[in-house]
């Protein structure tokens, strides 16, 4: 419940939209009730007046009920249309609000606070959760609110005639609207959950089958895939058959309850009319009124289904939104930097939840304008230096000075202005090449973009595309080759024009020839900048002023590439692979 209250608080700015939509929905239902009930009464009273002869005929006001019938019909048509327009409009506004709110909570957390959510799966589930929450208003909030109010109002109308009838209608609507769907939802919940699991199994099987088809076919597993698919399909259908039974019972039960309500109301009302407590024309009104009243609860079975879904989604979303900030950001003006030197002394950095320090007493001095390589195996702590510099993670002890000021004193956004980064993780957005470049410099002119592309050696390719700069790069940049994607990252770094260039394993995942060309084309970009080249490969180290070899979070050797080669220490170990045995 508290999750819903919180959700409603989030939606508070849109209360008029929400309530407006609900009011129109209520009006639609009430006008149908009114149309049917009034028609029934009108026919009976007109017939009575007709039978009564001229005396009663002249007293009978034909126009008021006739106009009422027409007014209810017209109201229903208009309010139905308006209701749908308004509730959908409200839904979109709420979705936008939810997304903005969630993004503003997520943004300060990235990346340290989102470590557990890094995989695409979990992120996409969160995004899907937002979409699910969006159903809360249209499919949960409005149906329950409207059903409740309509039930009270319609029963209240019956109470003018007889308390018994009012109570009977109220009970029937409540039981059919709440108890019946609740029971159906409970009964179906297990099959539903099993089906979700089976479907995700099925998806895994098919994705396996498609992505690994070459292997499966050559290993003779084709018939096996077909067999497994058949089994899973059967299992899914079996659950669905069960759910169809339950939902069939729900539907049939709902309409039966509606009919039973008419029946009970008749049993209660007939003696009242026979005894003269109520007029004869009230009976058809009751019968038709009850028929119309059940429209109020038609949406509730679906609402119960969404209730469970939105509760889960809200819980997950709020859990992420409530995560504590990994570490406080410095406030106030950034310290002035004259000379962007980096000096690390006995620095310790441990990731949240980590067993040991990723940087364990690191000493490192990088003078502004120099080109430095950090060489080491996976897990030696190389990339942690980049995480430290970008203030993605906090350090626990030791000193890290940038331009003579402790890193902790820089607001993270100000610190990041000193660094341009090219890494395998440089993300390409699923939009145009232009927009991907503008990420680095929002106000860049077209000409600047082309210059950056030229420097990154990507201009010919972009020019050869029919859409030029407006070529869509595809999801995660799939429409570009690995090398081209990395070149977009270079072009961005050029546009950013920062004093430091951090190359974090920039050729990871590229094939050797592409790697060679890529490193060659990076050269011009390095001119006049401080370069930090993080790698576990020996390629391109000759150009560096100094090479640091890292192991277990510390620098174990350093010197120029030539010196290190001569010493024959750790470096020679790196040199035996990749190149031929004779190297």
């Amino acid at each position, binding site marked *: 419940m508290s999750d819903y209250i919180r959700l409603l608080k989030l939606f508070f700015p849109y209360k008029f939209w929400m309530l407006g939509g609900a009011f129109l929905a209520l009006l639609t239902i009430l006008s149908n009730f009114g149309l049917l009930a009034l028609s029934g009464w009108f*026919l*009976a009273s*007109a*017939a009575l*007046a007709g039978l009564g002869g*001229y005396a009663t005929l002249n007293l009978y006001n034909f126009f008021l009920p006739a106009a009422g019938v027409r007014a209810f*019909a017209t109201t*229903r*048509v208009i309010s139905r*249309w308006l209701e*749908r327009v308004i509730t959908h409009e409200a839904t979109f506004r709420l*979705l*936008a609000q939810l*997304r*903005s709110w969630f*993004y*503003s909570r*997520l943004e300060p957390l990235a990346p340290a606070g989102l470590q557990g959510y890094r995989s695409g799966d979990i992120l996409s589930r*969160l*995004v899907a959760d937002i979409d699910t929450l969006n159903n809360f208003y249209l499919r949960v909030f409005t149906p329950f609110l409207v059903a409740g109010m309509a039930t009270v109002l319609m029963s209240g109308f019956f109470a003018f005639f007889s308390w018994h009838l009012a109570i009977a209608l109220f009970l029937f609507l409540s039981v059919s609207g709440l108890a019946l769907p609740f029971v159906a939802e409970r009964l179906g919940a297990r099959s539903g959950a099993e089906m979700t699991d089976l479907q995700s199994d*099925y998806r895994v099987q098919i*994705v396996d089958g*498609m*992505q*690994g*088809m*070459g*292997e*499966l*076919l*050559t*290993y*003779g*597993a*084709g018939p096996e895939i077909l067999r497994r698919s058949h089994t899973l*399909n059967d299992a899914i*259908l079996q659950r669905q*058959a069960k759910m169809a039974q339950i939902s*069939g019972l729900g539907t*049939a039960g709902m*309409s*039966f309850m509606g*009919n039973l309500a008419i*029946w009970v109301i008749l049993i209660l009302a007939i003696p009242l009319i026979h005894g003269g407590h109520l007029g*004869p024309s009230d009976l058809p009104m009751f*019968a*038709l009124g009850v028929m119309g009243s059940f429209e109020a609860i038609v949406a509730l079975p679906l609402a119960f289904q969404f209730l469970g879904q939105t509760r889960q989604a809200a819980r997950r979303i709020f859990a992420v939104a409530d995560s504590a900030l990994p570490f406080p950001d410095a406030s106030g003006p950034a310290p002035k930097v004259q000379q962007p030197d980096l000096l690390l002394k006995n620095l310790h950095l441990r990731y949240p939840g980590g067993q040991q320090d990723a940087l364990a007493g690191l000493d490192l001095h990088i003078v502004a304008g120099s080109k430095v390589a950090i060489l080491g195996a996976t897990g030696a702590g190389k990339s942690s230096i980049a995480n430290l510099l970008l203030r993605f993670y906090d350090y626990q002890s030791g000193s890290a000075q940038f331009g003579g000021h402790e890193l902790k004193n820089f607001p993270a*956004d100000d610190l990041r202005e000193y660094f341009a980064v090219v890494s395998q993780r440089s*993300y390409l957005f699923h*939009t145009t090449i232009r927009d991907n470049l503008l*990420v*680095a410099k929002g106000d860049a002119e077209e000409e600047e973009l082309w210059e950056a592309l030229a420097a990154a050696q990507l201009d010919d390719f972009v020019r050869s595309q029919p859409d030029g700069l407006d070529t869509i790069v595809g999801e995660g940049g799939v429409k570009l080759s690995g090398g081209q994607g990395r070149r977009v990252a270079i072009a961005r770094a050029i546009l950013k024009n920062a004093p430091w260039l951090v190359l974090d394993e920039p050729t990871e995942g590229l*094939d050797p*020839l592409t790697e060679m060309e890529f*490193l060659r084309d990076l050269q011009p970009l390095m001119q006049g900048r401080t370069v930090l080249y993080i790698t576990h490969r020996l390629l391109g180290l*000759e150009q560096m002023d100094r090479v640091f070899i890292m192991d277990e979070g510390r620098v174990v050797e350093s010197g120029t590439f030539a010196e290190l080669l001569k010493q024959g220490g750790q470096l020679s170990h790196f040199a035996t*692979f*990749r*190149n*031929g045995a004779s190297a």
Partner: protein
Amino acid sequence: MAKAERIDQRLMQEGRRTRGALYFGIGLGLAAGLLIILQAFILAHIINGVSFQGLSLAAVMPLLWALLGLFVLRAALSWAGELVAFRASARIKTYLREQLLNHLLKLGPVAIAGERSADIASTMIEGVEALEPYFSRYLPQMALVSLIPLAILMVVFPEDWISGLILLITGPLIPFFMVLVGYAAEAVNQRQWRKMLLMSAHFLDVVQGLTTLKIFGRAKDEIEIVARISDDYRRSTMAGLRVAFLTSAVLEFFASLSIALVAVSLGARLLQVHASVTFFTAFFVLLLAPEYFNPLRGLSTHYHARMSAIAAAKRIFEILDMPLPEKPRQAVEYSPSTEISLVVRNLHFSYEAGRSALEGVNAEFPAGKVTALVGASGAGKSTLASALLGFVQASEGEILVNGQMPLNAIEPELWWKQLAWVPQNPRLFHGSLGDNIRIGRPDADLAALREAAQNAHALEFIENLPDGFETMIGDLGQGLSGGQIQRIALARAFLKNPPLFILDEATANLDMENESLVLDAMQKLIAGRTAIVIAHRLATAERADHIIVMDAGRVAESGSHQELLAAGGVYARMVAAYRGEIHV
């Protein structure tokens, strides 16, 4: 529009498969509809009796019991209808899923490489699922939409022809206007939904790229962009929806207004001294009026089901319509041999017109020798391997097995039994590690499994896992490293132990220890066998018996490592580049 109708026709053809269940479902629906008329008749009698004839509860009680019986019967019919409808669609779903998977397997890995696997999976799961309402609701409703109102008209006309006329005129106007407004709305809707998908995708995109945005100091700006795109999207969607909602407004307009019209006209005629209609007739007709429009109301609901079914069916038929490769020759008897050599003659292949991948390849792969394929990406190495694997059919030229048998005359299943294929990024399948290695020989015992793993340098790390070979893929937490996956793939090949190996060496930069283990296992696997290796590492090419250098879909040169170095051609330049002699 014509297109949607064509898909409709094709779907109905599929519907024949389950014709019996469909007709039975329609029959149940019709019976329930006729019971409604009877129910209205009894109800009108009861009310007329009490209000106008002064009958007591006891006097109408038999009628009330009959009414209750009808209610129970109707509920039973409705429940049965639901089950029959489900059964009808279940058959079709099973059939289509099997067709799809069969077709995809026949198309082979290269033909479907362009299709995204996630997309195929959702077509097979949600796509086929979206057809259910089409068969279980839309089609039966289509039949009932004319039958039930017709039955009601037949009852109403003799009772009161004026009301009958009102219903007769307004009824058909509804589908007419719905078609008028609805079709336009359909196109608008489909466009909007696609945009909606993009919007959700955009948000996911931004969230995934958050770290990159932060590096560029743009993360805080993006919130405005998210808001702006949401807003743009809302505006354009609402413009479409406002029109689309007119469909339901039209329905409501005719349904509500004609009920009002029937009521007012009946009321006016009742309000006479010698009324031309009785209350019984008037009330009976009034009870039937909403029921007359109910099937139409249902139709508009299921119209949406039809729309999503058509969208899904379009994708399903697209896949089913992808042409299978032609088998140019009659399959001949092929007896498996223990030694295989291959000769490639003047092989041509293009993925699509104008994008040719192989342009007259001539090559020989002698038995018992390791041949390395070398060349830049796009040179045609993978395509040649695909042709040797039988995944693609050459447009010209031929591949001869053991000097005489054309490859495309051999049944693929037979050919695949003769070889093992290790791709660049091998895939581990849902199941245990043991199952993954046993994939080519499901009956292999533990000893054979351990031996294969041992040969592939995979035994040690597998046995260090708490569950060993029983460890489930997916329960591995962090997952396996690239090198470990490679070694499992090699273990598969060791276990299968066929006469021919086709390998695509990993390009990923494995860490050093892994790299040496993988290379060592691979050398052990292929030494002294007929093997074709797409080499990305110089060391691999160097150790091969023979090297074929490919360039732009042709063989540029071939020979041993030393010969090619001495020749000073493409290969020699590549070697120089690998060794870093060209300064970067």
